[in-house]
């Protein structure tokens, strides 16, 4: 009997130690707040070759610094292999948190997973990964609803008829499809609105210009171009300007970038969907700070509403946000 009791006691103690050890590991990231390695925040951005993402990254960095962290920006150049290298370096350097703008909703999952396994939380900003249990939280533009509004305005401006072109962003990015599907959930209900071409221009200004030039050779009679972001809208406008067609083709963008906001004010671009990169970046940095201080109960996905910006309401907006928020 005493031997059995001894075995039971030893096993219980063993289980207790194991349980305690696991709990310690779970709480790890919040404990070493004062150590130097835990005061650094990495900001990983999909590309810095687009001013909108530069604003996203710079704002995240600035807010993290205001909160007392040392912050470094990493540019993934829209390349998941580069993004993976950044994560390896961030893990090796022992950063406290990652403010993460993913390059690809599926391919970026592995990077968030390895950071989590290393005890470094990732906070997705603007773009999501297709997972709801790996990132600490994901603050995302509500692209679908934004493009429903944009689609309704498009229908109104086109008087429910005409030929149009759609330029898509990066095909692996959920934002591309959320925008396209939101737009089509409205526009496809009007049979006299005909999409004569739908092509990918990878959210890139130069590619958009080249793609639209090529499309216009086969389809000279278009009335509008719907672009999945503002960089492509500016590229499309350049192609139309070169072809002398700016007066008869309406351009619609999505983002709220400076050059498009200026162009709406000047009457060159018809409308865009205002995302709020500054707001999302600030929220990400603040959530990372809260996490480091011990908070854990974040909603997994937080959609941030997109607002329709047109020539009628442009006075309320400035680049990357509302006039009242500046």
């Amino acid at each position, binding site marked *: 009997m005493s031997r059995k009791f001894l075995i039971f006691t030893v096993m219980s103690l063993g289980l207790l130690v194991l349980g305690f050890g696991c709990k310690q590991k779970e709480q790890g990231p919040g404990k070493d707040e004062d150590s130097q390695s835990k005061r650094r925040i990495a900001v990983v951005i999909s590309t810095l070759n687009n001013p909108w993402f530069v604003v996203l990254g710079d704002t995240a960095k600035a807010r993290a610094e205001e909160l007392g962290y040392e912050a470094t920006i990493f540019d993934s150049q829209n390349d998941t292999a580069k993004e993976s290298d950044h994560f390896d370096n961030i893990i090796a350097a022992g950063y406290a948190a990652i403010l993460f703008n993913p390059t690809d909703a599926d391919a970026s999952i592995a990077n968030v997973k390895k950071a989590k396994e290393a005890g470094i939380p990732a906070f997705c900003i603007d773009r*999501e990964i297709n997972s*709801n249990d790996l990132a600490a939280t994901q603050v995302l533009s509500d692209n*679908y609803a934004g493009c429903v509004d944009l689609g309704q305005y498009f229908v109104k401006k086109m008087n429910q008829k005409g030929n149009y072109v759609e330029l898509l962003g990066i095909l692996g990015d*959920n934002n591309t499809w959320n925008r396209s*599907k*939101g737009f089509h*959930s409205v526009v496809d209900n009007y049979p006299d609105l005909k999409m004569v071409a739908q092509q990918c221009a990878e959210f890139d200004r130069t590619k958009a210009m080249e793609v639209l030039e090529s499309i216009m050779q086969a389809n000279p009679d278009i009335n509008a171009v719907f672009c999945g972001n503002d960089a492509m809208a500016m590229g499309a406008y350049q192609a139309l300007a070169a072809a002398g067609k700016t007066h008869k083709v309406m351009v619609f963008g999505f983002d709220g970038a400076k050059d498009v906001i200026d162009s709406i004010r000047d009457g060159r671009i018809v409308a865009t969907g205002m995302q709020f990169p500054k707001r999302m970046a600030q929220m990400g940095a603040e959530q990372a700070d809260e996490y480091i201080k011990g908070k854990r109960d974040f909603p997994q*996905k937080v*959609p*941030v509403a997109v607002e329709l910006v047109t020539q009628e309401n442009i006075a309320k907006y400035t680049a990357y946000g509302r006039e009242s928020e500046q």
Partner: protein
Amino acid sequence: MKKVCKYSLSAAILVFVLSQSVYFEDLKVVREQRRREAFNAAEYAGDLWLNELPSVLDEAVDVKELIELFNTNMGQAIERYGKTPGVSRVYAYLLKGEGTILSIDRDGLKVSVKEPQTNPDVVIETGSYIPGNAVRDASGLIDVSKFSDTMKFNEIGSEINKIIVRDVIRPLPDKKPTVGGTIKFFGATQVAQDAAEENLLQLVRVVPIRLELE
């Protein structure tokens, strides 16, 4: 005494076996889990429409109270009744009301819900499609965080809208709505927090969930 022991032991064994073979789970939780595991937006929306939406209609606020709050205290309207899945200046509201049909056109049914019934207060959408996510968001039944990607969340909203067109809007002409007739409705609306300041509240647009004509 021996028999008592025997029966007690048998009962204990029976209770033990039953307790090991039967377990109870919240039906709502199980249904939610099954819907997510085998995701099909149309089925998800259909199940929600039939089995869960009716119970939240009890929470619908009277449209007269809502219009009054929109115009006098938007903050209170948002706090008491507004719903949004994330961060937004636009909130969704589940509402109910009764009024007189003042006109019927392509835009929908214009209805007066206040006395004197001369000007329309709401327009009940009866077009061939419903844009947006008013019903999905006003119901408060779907948490975006439960989905691995937000497209699924959006597809559900779109499928709910298709059900509304199929089951609520298309059968409406058979009920023969007439100008001057009375209509009772449950529905949802989305209103921006600064709508009153920008004079966007002349007509509250209602996406119908249930319509009854008298």
